[in-house]
Every structure is written in structure tokens, then in C-alpha cells.
């Protein structure tokens, strides 16, 4: 493997001369095929990181590299080809009047020949399980379906990394699980990097690594499991601990020592029903 896919070198950013720094000297790297979660309280600078990665914003200090290219005016279109982004609001990123037209939008922008477009649209809609909705207008789709179309639209340009910026935060529980399932299926089947931005700790359990942001600073890099051992600190920087982790901690407090920190219901169950036999 060559160098990292994404690299931040001492990146600082603010929205204006007279505004406070939103990112302060941030450093991290993301490898090819890696699945990263970025968490942090509202306003901690997560979306700003996402927008810096594909050049929607540019830093006042430091350097950003994507796929071996420095992110700057000259490389911006090549960078955007490697980076696919799914935003928070399902409605405000749907450009086409139908599902088919919307997926075509990104392909048209890149001058992909029509036959190739048709092939890729079909393929990507199958991947996100939306083939039955090709001619649907956005107002006839649920939030989860719109976000799946957004993912298909991003997949169609064959990016190296997909950034999901709180892509599930405006969805109902059903839509949320649709997106989570779609993304985890993609992770298994494609060699691509994923950056999941969220302020919901429940969504980080599938990540290889978690970057925790606090007030514009990179607060911690850790695996999900390591992270859940720092519950008090996480609460302090304004994050909600998931139910399973909270329960596990309460159990530890009353003297029930669990072998490892459970990340989800299954692991917790496993720990609990084998607990007695280990005593």
C-alpha cells in the first residue's frame, strides 16, 4: 500500500478573519479501505473537516492531501472525483426531478458517456436496493430512500472515500437502519474508505477507528472499544453514551465484572449469559 488516502497536516481553519478558529492544528491520516468515525458535540468542527477534505473550504494554515494530491484550486476537481459526500438533509442534496436524473447529475458533471451512465445508474440503484424507484420524484420518497439515492449518486462516480456527514440524523429509526445496513453492506463488498460523521455514539461501533473532536481540536484517536472505557470524559465533552455501554458500566459499578466492553446488544447478551459460568 502506498501513502495514506487522506492526510491532515497541522490544519487550522476559521470562517473569517474576525471569527474564532473552528479547527486548531488538526493532524490525522486515514488509510485506504479504512472505516473511520468522527464524533464530537455540535459545532466541534466535524462538518468543517468534511468540507475541507473535498475543497469546499480551504484551510488558512496547514496542508491537506487526498489520494496523493494536495487539495488546492488546481486539483479540486480531481479531488472531488475521489471523495463522495452525503449530507445531512435528504431533501437539500437531491438535484434531479427523478431518482434516475439525480444519480445522473454527478455523472453528467463529469462528462461520462450516456451508455456508461445508464449502466452505472442501474448498478448503483441495485446496490442501494432502490431499483424499483427509478422514475420516482423525490417528494414520493421517504427520507431513508432519499439518502439511499444520495449514496447511489455518490457510488456512481466510483470514489475512493465516502463521507457521510450526519447522514442519518434527520431520519426516523427505520430510515436510519436502512442507511446503516446499506453502508455496512458496502463496507463488506467494496474496497473503499468510509468516514462516518456523527454525534451519536451508537453509530461508531462498526468503525475501525474513531476520531473524537472537541471544540476544534482533535481530542482523541482510538478504537471504539477503547473509547467506551472513557465514558466520564466523553460525557464531559458533551456526548451521549449509548445504553449498552452505560448499562455495562453500571454493572461494573455494582461488582459485575464483564470480560470486555460490550459494543452492542448481542455482545452484552453474550457477556451476561456466560457471566455466571465464569464465576
Amino acid at each position, binding site marked *: 500500500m502506498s501513502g495514506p488516502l487522506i492526510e491532515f497536516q497541522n490544519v487550522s481553519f476559521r470562517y473569517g478573519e474576525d471569527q474564532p478558529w473552528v479547527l486548531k492544528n488538526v493532524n490525522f491520516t486515514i488509510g485506504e479501505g479504512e472505516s473511520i468515525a468522527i464524533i464530537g458535540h455540535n459545532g466541534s468542527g466535524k462538518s468543517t473537516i468534511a*468540507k475541507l477534505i*473535498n475543497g*469546499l473550504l480551504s484551510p488558512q494554515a496547514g496542508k491537506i492531501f487526498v489520494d496523493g494530491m494536495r487539495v488546492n484550486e488546481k486539483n479540486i*476537481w480531481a479531488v*472531488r*472525483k475521489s*471523495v463522495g*459526500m452525503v*449530507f445531512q*438533509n435528504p*431533501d*437539500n*442534496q*437531491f*438535484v*434531479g*426531478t*427523478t431518482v*434516475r*436524473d439525480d444519480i*445522473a*447529475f*454527478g*455523472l*453528467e*458533471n*463529469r*462528462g*461520462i*458517456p*450516456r451508455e456508461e*451512465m*445508464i449502466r452505472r*445508474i442501474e448498478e448503483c440503484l441495485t446496490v442501494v436496493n432502490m431499483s424499483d424507484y427509478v422514475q420516482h*420524484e*423525490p*417528494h*414520493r420518497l421517504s427520507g431513508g430512500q432519499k439518502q439511499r439515492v444520495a449514496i447511489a*449518486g*455518490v457510488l456512481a*462516480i466510483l470514489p475512493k472515500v465516502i463521507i457521510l456527514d450526519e447522514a442519518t440524523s434527520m431520519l426516523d429509526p427505520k430510515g436510519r437502519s436502512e442507511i446503516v445496513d446499506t453502508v455496512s453492506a458496502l463496507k463488506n463488498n467494496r474496497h473503499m474508505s468510509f468516514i462516518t460523521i456523527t454525534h451519536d455514539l451508537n453509530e461508531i461501533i462498526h468503525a475501525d477507528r474513531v476520531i473524537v473532536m472537541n471544540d476544534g481540536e482533535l481530542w482523541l484517536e482510538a478504537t471504539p472499544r477503547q473509547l467506551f472505557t472513557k465514558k466520564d470524559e466523553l460525557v464531559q465533552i458533551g456526548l451521549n453514551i449509548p445504553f449498552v455501554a452505560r448499562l455495562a458500566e453500571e454493572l461494573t459499578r455494582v461488582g459485575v465484572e464483564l470480560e470486555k466492553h460490550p459494543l452492542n446488544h448481542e455482545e452484552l447478551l453474550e457477556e451476561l449469559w456466560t457471566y455466571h459460568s465464569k464465576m
Partner: protein
Amino acid sequence: MNNTLIIGQYVPGNSLVHRLDPRTKIVIIFFFVFFIFFANSPASYGLLTLFAITSALTTKIKLPYILKGLKPVWFLIVFTFFLHLFVTKEGEVLLHIFTYPIYSDAVSQGTAISLRFFLLIMVTSLLTLTTTPIEITDAIESLLHPLKRINFPVHELALMMSISLRFIPTLIQETEKISKAQASRGVDFKTGSIKDRMQAIVPLLVPLFVSAFKRAEDLAMAMEARGYQGGEGRTKLRQLRVEKRDILAYVLFVCVLIGLFFTRS
């Protein structure tokens, strides 16, 4: 959610008229509207009416439905007729309505003008009945293409139109939501004086505008992230193609025009 929301008055169908290239329809209708003003004899009017009715029948949309769609303009058509009937004072007196003389030219002119008006509206509504708004947008983009040379922003205009079409239902849904939310807070849209009702609109419009601006900002960001960099070097998924049926439509229409010049007096 409101699933039956249709933009415009498009009636889905598979008739010959539906399948015509939207550019063909626009060009023919444009010239039809232009040449209506050349008709001046009963035979020439008859010919144009025949063409309009035949086209309407070809769409396989029920004629009463099409005529019902003209409802808002029926009044104007009838009004125009009576205006001419009472104002024109040429030709011979045909009869008296309560001592008010009605002239022969008044009848013929009233009929002619109303008929023109009727044909004009009917034929243009055939376009919107058989063509989706997005097809019309594509057609306009294609027809205006030559204007690119004088730096007219054809692609941008078409993109603007299609994004508007995309967001109209979203904004309508949002308006409904806001008006319900405000009604539940006690804003009364339905009763009171005109002034009261106008004032009640303010708490509806303000949040609507705020959210529309937010949407515009988000959308611009999303479009850029998806590689949008203007019309240069773009390919198109939706394509318009001139088929045999389009040629046929043009030929028929030219025949009607030739007929028009022979039937003029």
C-alpha cells in the same frame, strides 16, 4: 405525505402526441399561434379548428377533460364575444335586443376573435397536457441552444427551471406543514378581514423564506461536491431525438398552413 401532487397539468399517456419530441410540439404550437392571426375566412377558421380538434383527439385525453381545463378562460372567451357584439357598429343591423342594434360584423368579428382565443388556449394547453415539465425544459434548452453564441446562459436557465420543478412540491409540502404548525399556535388563516388574513400570512412566509435560503445554500454546496462546474463538458442523460413521427407531424402541419393560404379570402 401528499403522493398525488402533480406539477402542471400533465396527463400521463402513450399517444402519438405524447411521444412526439417536445421540441416538435413547441415549434408547431408556436407557428400555429402565429398563423391563427392570418385566418380571415370561415373556411380558414374551420381548417385551423379541425387541426386543433384532431390534435386534441389524437392525445386520447377525453375532450370534456381538456375543455374543463380551459375553465378559467371560458369567461374571457365569452366576454370577448359579447364585447365585440355590442361595441362593433359596422355592417347591416341584424336584429335589435331591446332596441339595441346588433350588427352583422359584430357577430362575425366577435366569433372570430373568440375562436382565435379559444384555439390559442386549447392548443397551448395540449402541450402541457401531454408533455412533462422536465421535457419542456429540455426542449427549451435545446431550442435556445444557438443563443449560447451571444453568451445567453441557456444551460443555467434550463438548470434553474429543472431545480425549480424539483423543489416546487417540496416547498408546497413545507408550506402545508408550517401553516398547520402556525394554526396550532393560534394563527388564523381562514377568517377575519382581508387585512387580518394578510397579516396571518407573515408567520407563514418568514419561516418558509428562511428555510428556502437554507435549502439553496445546502443545494449549492451539494452540487459543487458532486462535481458541478457549469455547462462546459457536461454530458446529458435525457436526450431528445427527432423520429419519423416528428417529421410526419411537421409535414402535416405544413399542409395545414398551405391549406390556410388557399382558404384565406
